[in-house]
């Protein structure tokens, strides 16, 4: 009996203590929140997709260096978490960031499954999810709080399809990686290319973890197309181009076309001269001839010793969007108000003029047709045609 009361007493004591603590926190929290806006940045910093994460992280650091870390009187704090592009991790990290760290934004997301895993959490917590990399069309439909600053695969794949038909390419063989973005790229390309009168003579889907492209490339060569449409994840592009040249497909007159992921600025220089003449459609090239981009590339190179790619520019625009939205709401971090502020926002990015589609919260941007050329001894994607204000074809279709 005595023992029990003692336990009861201690329990009540600790409860009271907890109550005091909670009250204390509650009183203290709003004061703190007035000052800092927290952004939970979830990126693959290790693993096969690490280059994506590093570029975005670098670009955000650069932006905050240039523009300062205060917006509308509030300090911005970035909390970086590594999910290694594994969606289970993404979900857990997003939850921790929202519940424990009380972040006002979640951002980043290197691959589609990661962005999708965080979507329900953004909806529940009513906080904006800024997608800075993943490129499958459906992502922005999964939560009314998702806004994207990267691209969709449909954007570049449809454009390269249209361009190919108009430029005398009649027979195309396709080689795409067998996963969601690869299939997206293939289907949108096929639709636009065949609608224009083009013909697909060979269609090969290569497994994602593919050690050797040799047999697939031999098949491409034997099909004798005018060009081959290629989509492989960024990391495999170099390997692919090497084998393409080794097998003499360049000498057989088979051009490489595709969405620009294969020719990521980050990796382009390592591919060697085999990449010369490759025509791709994409949102960004480090060689984009605008004053803003020249400055962006120069300061990025100075800070990190490498060339920014399209992932870097997506991160740069992502953080800009957050800054601009906070400016518009006067520093208020209400999720709905922020999303409203972001809708329809237009600005000049290093990649050119871009805006956020007010209906789909997806990015609207110029898609450039580029050709790999040697500039000052380095390989660059040199832009030679522009398709203006391209929306995501995956949604406009409906």
């Amino acid at each position, binding site marked *: 009996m005595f023992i029990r009361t003692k336990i009861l007493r201690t329990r009540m004591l600790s409860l009271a203590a907890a109550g005091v603590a909670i009250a204390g926190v509650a009183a203290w929290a709003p004061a703190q929140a007035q000052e800092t806006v927290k952004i939970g940045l979830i990126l693959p910093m*290790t*693993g*096969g997709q*690490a*280059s994506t994460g590093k570029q975005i992280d670098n670009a955000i650091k650069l932006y905050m260096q240039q523009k300062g870390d205060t917006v509308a009187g509030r300090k911005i704090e970035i909390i970086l978490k590594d999910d290694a592009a594994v969606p289970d991790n993404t979900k857990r990290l997003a939850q921790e960031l929202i519940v424990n760290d009380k972040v006002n934004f979640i951002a980043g997301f290197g691959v589609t499954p990661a962005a999708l895993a965080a979507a329900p959490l953004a909806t529940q917590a009513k906080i904006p999810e800024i997608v800075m990399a993943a490129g499958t069309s459906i992502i922005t439909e999964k939560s009314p709080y998702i806004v994207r600053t990267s691209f969709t695969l449909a954007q570049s794949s449809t454009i390269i399809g249209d361009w190919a038909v108009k430029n005398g390419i009649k027979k195309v063989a396709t080689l795409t990686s067998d996963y969601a973005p690869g299939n997206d790229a293939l289907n949108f390309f096929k639709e636009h290319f065949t609608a224009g009168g083009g013909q697909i003579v060979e269609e*090969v*889907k290569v*497994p994602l*973890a*593919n*050690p*050797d492209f*040799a*047999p*697939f490339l*031999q*098949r491409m*060569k*034997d099909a004798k197309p005018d060009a081959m449409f290629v989509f492989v994840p960024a*990391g*495999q592009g*170099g*390997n692919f181009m*090497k*084998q393409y*040249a*080794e*097998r*003499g497909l360049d000498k057989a007159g088979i051009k490489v076309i595709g969405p620009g992921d294969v020719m990521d600025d980050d*990796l382009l220089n*390592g591919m060697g001269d085999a990449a010369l003449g490759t025509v791709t459609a994409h949102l960004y090239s480090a060689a984009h001839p605008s004053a803003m981009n020249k400055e962006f590339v120069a300061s990025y190179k100075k800070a990190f010793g490498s060339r920014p790619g399209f992932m870097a520019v997506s991160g740069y625009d992502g953080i800009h969007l957050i800054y601009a939205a906070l400016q518009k709401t006067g520093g208020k971090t209400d999720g709905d108000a922020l999303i409203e502020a972001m809708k329809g926002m237009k600005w000049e990015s290093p990649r050119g003029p871009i805006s956020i589609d007010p209906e789909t919260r997806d990015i609207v941007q110029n898609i450039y047709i580029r050709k790999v050329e040697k500039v000052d001894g380095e390989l660059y994607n040199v832009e030679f045609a522009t398709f203006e204000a391209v929306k995501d074809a995956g949604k406009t279709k409906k």
Partner: protein
Amino acid sequence: MTSLFTNLFDGVAYGMLLFVLACGLAVTLGLMNFVNLAHGAFAMTGGYVCAVLVNQSGWPFFAALPLAFVASALIGAVLERSLYRHLYNRSHLDQVLFSVGLVFMSVAAVDYIMGSSRVFIRIPQALEGQIDFFGVGIGRYRLMIIVICGLLTAGLQLVLARTRFGSRLRAAVDDPRAASGLGINVPQVFAFTFAFGCGLAGLGGALSAEILGLDPYFPLKFMIYFLIVVTVGGSSSITGPFLASLLLGIGDVAGKYYVPKIGPFVIYTIMIVILIWRPNGLFGRTAAR
């Protein structure tokens, strides 16, 4: 018709490469009865050593290849003496756990030191492109692989079958107790063999960077291929793994070329069929130890 020969050639080159990568594993697993899943880590080490020497220190490719062998062999020897030795008499499960641990450590270490992006080794101009041989496209680099690996295989077979060291090794494997009773220094023979197998893997890693790509996940990605070679080939000699590598290389390339939709499964189907037909592998010993 010409593409048939090109495919055959590619398959042989791929198979030869698999053999050099995996034959060290055949030796440790078959001859020394040790399950070393970390074999790919030694291959990766060789690849990175070669890449650093060629790309950063400006060594010629052919000078860096032997060093890839030496570096992997040295690391292999050190690890054998310090770690592996203690596990020879443990159960296979312990060995698997231990070596998988090593794999993850090597992946993390290389990721930390070299970064996670794919590395290419700059190869000499003379090895780029294809030679046209009566209309059959022959890749120069692949031709070089076939030559190097062919010589290595012949050399290995000679050493094992004809030299004193070869007979000591076979004796040590057949019955370690009797062998040491006859004055053979069994631990030394094993250590040397292990290191040599690691060196071969290192050489294979350096050669394969051009074709398979080299990144920190190499040991995990290709572990399964090595194991297939050893299980299908049987692990009692090196002829078995050699033929198995060729069969798998050709099967894989042909499967991906002729039936690209199910191409990646061909190599596994071959494995299953062979293992049902001969559970100990093509050249496995029928009498279990």
